[in-house]
């Protein structure tokens, strides 16, 4: 299994720059996820790797070999698509056999049979083998679609939102199965999704893209805890990270002034030290995850007053929506925590989870 390396890859469609100097280094056997909103360039990246699109400049290496001139078939990649999956005129079995019968692979009949049965077994689709695709449910179709990719034992799996057309429950189930299969086969996998939960849950590493630019590459935990900029911070996490405008008030003990003087949050000595090092003191944004805000029933120093807008019960947790000036703040609490509508509460921000961003550039300055 090769590594996949993209260096400075640029891809344009007419005047639109779909990929703007993309650098990626995907390791052998890695499950690598590209995540981002619609139009981020994630699918284009996938298609560039597959050879279905040619790059305009930059390098694409498989291992040490230059892959730019290779055809899709020569690259030995298998593609799993979002909605297309199967050839409608062929049975499930014929669909699975199709790659093995291609002029490039042309396996013996026996080999084809044993491989198809093996894959069918792996994906629990053995009873479906003789059905036509139109007699399958969405989940079954996508299983067969994945089977078609696996059956050929390719060097690389390329998956373009394979779960996004499925019901939420099925998605949850299949994402674990897919991850399991990949870790058994140890095939290098490039997986595209717009669903950040899917990205976090499946990826060994995650690249967050937006408008053709990679914003951050890291493990799911890194991307969640230490977002490199405002975009990543806002995109990863559900509910979203809360953002408050912020400036650093200097003095004997530095503090954070939030929402133009709404509250002064004093900092511990450790944080104060870090903050002193920042070159920029104004025009900042403080980001904090909903689970890093503590709800109090009493006033207190550095606690921000807020009014309860409404409460969302999710069973394993509650999300409390709070009104602060024009903004809505979300905090995540234990399911037993309840509040009444319009009730006044006071919020404490856990300073080790605060992240400061430069409002202009969006880049993280980081504290906590």
């Amino acid at each position, binding site marked *: 299994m090769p590594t996949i390396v993209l260096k400075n890859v640029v891809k344009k469609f007419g005047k639109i720059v779909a990929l703007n100097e993309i650098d990626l280094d995907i390791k052998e056997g890695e499950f690598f996820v590209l995540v981002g*909103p*619609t139009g981020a360039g994630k699918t284009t990246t996938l298609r560039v790797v597959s050879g279905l699109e040619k790059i305009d400049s930059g390098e694409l290496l498989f291992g040490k070999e230059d892959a730019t001139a290779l055809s899709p078939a020569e690259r030995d990649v298998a593609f799993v698509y979002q909605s297309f999956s199967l050839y409608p005129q062929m049975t499930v079995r014929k669909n699975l056999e199709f790659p093995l019968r291609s002029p490039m692979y042309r396996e013996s009949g026996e080999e084809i049979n044993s491989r198809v049965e093996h894959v069918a077994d792996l994906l629990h689709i053995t009873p479906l083998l003789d059905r036509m695709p139109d007699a399958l449910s*969405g989940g079954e179709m996508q299983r067969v679609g994945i089977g078609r990719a696996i059956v050929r034992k390719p060097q690389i799996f390329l998956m373009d939102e394979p779960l996004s057309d499925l*019901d*939420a*429950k099925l998605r*949850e189930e299949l*994402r*674990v199965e897919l*991850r*399991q299969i990949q*870790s058994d086969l140890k095939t290098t996998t490039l997986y595209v999704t*717009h*669903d*950040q*939960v899917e990205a*976090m*849950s*499946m990826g060994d590493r995650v690249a967050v893209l937006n408008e053709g630019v990679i914003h951050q590459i890291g493990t*799911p*935990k890194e991307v*969640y805890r230490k977002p490199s900029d405002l975009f990543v911070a*806002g*995109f*990863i*996490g*559900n*509910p*979203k990270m809360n953002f408050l405008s912020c400036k650093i008030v200097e003095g004997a003990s530095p503090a954070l002034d939030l929402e133009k003087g709404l509250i002064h949050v004093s900092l511990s000595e450790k944080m104060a030290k870090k903050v002193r090092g920042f070159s920029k003191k104004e025009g900042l944004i403080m980001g904090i*995850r*909903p*689970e890093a805000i503590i709800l109090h029933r009493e006033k207190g120093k550095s606690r921000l007053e807020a009014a309860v*807008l*409404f409460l*969302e*019960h*999710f*069973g*394993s947790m509650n*999300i409390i*929506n709070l009104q602060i000036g024009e903004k*809505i703040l979300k905090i*995540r609490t234990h*399911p037993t925590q309840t509040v009444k*509508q319009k009730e006044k509460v006071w919020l404490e921000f856990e300073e080790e989870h605060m992240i400061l961003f430069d409002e202009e550039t969006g880049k993280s300055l980081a504290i906590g």
Partner: protein
Amino acid sequence: MYIMSMIRLINMTKRFGKTVAVKNADLEIEKGELVVFLGPSGCGKTTTLRCIAGLENPEEGEIYIDNEMVNDLPTLDRDVGFVFQHYALFPHMSAYQNISFPLRAMKHKKSDIEREVMKVAELLRIDKILQFKPSHLSGGDLQSVALARALVIKPKVFLLDEPLSTLDAEFREEARTMIKKIHLEIGATTIYVTHDQMEAMAIADRIVTMNLGEIQQIDAPEYVYHNPVNMFVANFLGSPGMNFIDCSLEENNTLKLGLDGKILQINEKIVKKIKAVGEDKAVLMMGIRPEDIKLSFKKDVYGFDMKVTIVEEIGPENIVNLRSGDHVVKVLTDPDILPKTGETVWAVPDQDKIRIFDQQTKKEIL
């Protein structure tokens, strides 16, 4: 007869050819309530909504809106606002023309129309984009315009068919909050259809869970979550849903699990419950929510051992997938609990949270 409800379905059945899309639906919705129809695709939730709107005609049963039987009334006369999944905005009209369309159809005065449109537009914060045509608007804005078009006629009932499903995940959360906020502000009776249980839990006053054309349960979100009537509801709500393990009661009042006959100690209460219904044979199913299981790294008689397969780190929590034979159990843990793949751990269910279901009927044993 005077009924206090805004919408009432009595024994409604809708068929498409031989398939029964909705079967004997009975439902009452109070004035000002936000009710969510929740279920997987093909469960009949959208069909029910369309029946209420008059876009489909049920074969049997009655539909009342505001105490008036509307079975034979066309959509036009039912006084409902409908928001379609794909917005159904007219592409050749600006946002303003789209929103004012129903008012113009009713031949309101021009000045009245303008006032009403501006009021809704401000409420939805789309007053700045009114002159644009749909092709120039983002997904979130399109959604707002579609909502505004339904809101502007001030219908008795507001019907939303998966209004957020075409939005990107990042906008969906925001739009959901907006819909809830607007509902709190204007208090219109609303029915909201979705297949996303998170969305349902977040905004509903009550959730109507449906499956295979039948209503399973009608209750407030937290109530449904903690007291599901059957296995379908228990698994459909929650992310991940409830875990199930087949089990039977042993002579010595322990549970023999379908995991290679592993034995689980259980407390008196559960034993009594099982015995009370006399179902002590092998037709039981234990249900336990992922967040109600603790992981122990050493043997625990109140737990059962399984192998760790995959740990999903999804930010504020981890989903630990455990396997034993064909059984998969999901456990929700704090983000700092990170067992290794292949490691054996003991899953210890919270005894008070264990639920027992009848394997045949799939219903809960109370």
